């Protein structure tokens, strides 16, 4: 599948790769490291048109959402957004999502590769409820503008629009370059910025207008490689790496971020409550290499010559200059400073459990 900006990427020197069935730009000629640093220091623009987005509305929208996702949305005022999850009955993670409370509807943004599965799941749990589940992909295009200069870039594009008063994790409507867009102050980079739903018609023009407005502030388009290293430094989970149907929010350490166990009864709640009663066999940790080497998804984590876990994500972190990673280890070895090793091509390389995230942006207000 191709996003609406596919032709633009190819014409502008992007290297394309398959990502969950989507032909996406992994990098431009600038290169992943520079794209990564540009988002940390200035701003980057990402095509995220592949992301699934559903509009939930109708008299039973709240009742429906309380049932199918983990955050208690009665706490979510209009204009606010929150991270959440869709679980199966046994507490396994079907997807991690963002829920946005718009004026008279809810927006649910889901992972691209999970969108067909999620849509089927949600529809199958809507029976008997007066709720509409509408796929917004036909009428909207989605891009992410991320980095400390993101607000200044948008402000240059819409000098009269109020952006300063919008806090983090909000959703608002604004007009830029003649287009009415939904601005979400969310992202997947660990930097402040926006995820933008713009009208599908004319989206390439809008994309170009953002790049043009941002050029004086060193904005560049960024690919999936930078998106992945940025989210990994911020320890934001990637579906298929840190989380999947065989993992749960407790073991992934995501309960505080995504789940309200009290207040509403959602699918998977009982299973989670039961899991919480006994010690977890394994938990997700962050680690730093003490010997140089690149940990990668699927590598074994060892201790005392014994395999004690698996790497879910590993990388050279451009912002810190360190080789770091995340992975599941036996709970007894999850404490910060615990020494472990990562098995890289049969060699055991020293590593140490460290605090997460690996990098915290100084640009949060």
């Amino acid at each position, binding site marked *: 599948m191709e996003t609406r900006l596919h032709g633009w990427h190819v014409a502008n020197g992007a290297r394309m790769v398959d990502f969950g069935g989507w032909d996406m730009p992994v990098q431009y000629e600038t290169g992943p490291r520079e794209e990564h640093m540009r988002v940390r220091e200035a701003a980057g623009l990402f095509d995220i048109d592949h992301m699934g987005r559903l509009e939930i509305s109708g008299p039973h929208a709240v009742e429906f959402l309380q049932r199918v996702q983990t955050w208690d949305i009665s706490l979510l005022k209009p204009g606010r957004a929150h991270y959440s999850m869709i679980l199966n009955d046994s507490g396994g993670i079907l997807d991690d999502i963002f829920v946005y409370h718009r004026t008279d509807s809810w927006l649910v943004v889901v992972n691209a590769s999970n969108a067909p599965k999620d849509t089927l799941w949600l529809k199958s749990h809507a029976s008997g409820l007066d709720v509409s589940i509408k796929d917004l992909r036909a009428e909207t295009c989605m891009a992410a503008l991320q980095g400390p200069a993101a607000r200044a870039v948008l402000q240059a594009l819409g000098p009269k629009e109020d952006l300063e008063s919008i806090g983090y994790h909000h959703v608002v409507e604004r007009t830029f370059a003649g287009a009415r867009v939904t601005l979400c102050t969310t992202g997947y980079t660990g930097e402040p910025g926006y995820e933008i739903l713009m009208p599908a018609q004319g989206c390439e023009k809008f994309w170009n207008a953002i790049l043009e407005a941002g050029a004086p502030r060193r904005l560049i388009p960024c690919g999936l*490689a930078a998106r992945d290293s940025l989210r990994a430094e911020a320890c934001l989970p990637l579906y298929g790496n840190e989380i999947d149907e065989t993992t749960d929010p407790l073991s992934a350490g995501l309960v505080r971020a995504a789940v309200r166990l009290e207040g509403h009864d959602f699918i998977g709640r009982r299973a989670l409550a039961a899991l919480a009663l006994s010690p977890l066999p394994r938990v997700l940790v962050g680690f730093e290499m003490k010997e140089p080497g690149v940990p990668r998804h699927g590598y074994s984590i060892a201790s005392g010559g014994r395999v004690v876990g698996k790497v879910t994500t590993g990388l050279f972190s451009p912002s810190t200059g360190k080789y770091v990673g995340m992975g599941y280890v036996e709970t007894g070895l999850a404490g910060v400073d615990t020494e472990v090793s990562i098995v890289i091509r049969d060699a055991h390389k020293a590593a140490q459990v460290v605090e997460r995230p690996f990098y915290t942006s100084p640009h949060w207000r």
Partner: protein
Amino acid sequence: MEFKVDQKVRYSKTHEWVRVEGGEAVIGISDYAQNKLSDVVFVELPPAGKELKAGAACLVIESVKAAEEVFAPVSGSVVGRNEALEKSPELVNSDPFGQGWLVRVKLAVPAEIDSLMDAAAYTSYLSTL
């Protein structure tokens, strides 16, 4: 896309280069190879004294994408390693024919050089890819 081709070195089909200096040879990867790899983040060099065999994997370059093997273009024992790559693996990207060199070997079979492509042959080889 245009790639730099150093006129003074010999090339393998797997995009390694060799520069002969007396009875020794310096080995690296070409500009084309570094571009395909994307940003290099780690180079695992063989230890000094290791015997490399022409055509066999001799070291690993890790890029942001994946770990890729480098094949020895000639046989010989390792007499020098580019230690600068430990702190600055990106030299393989920025200066593949210069500061981004990988290892220096004492040639075991000097005649192996003749089976490698010269710059003109490598340039036409690149045009077929």
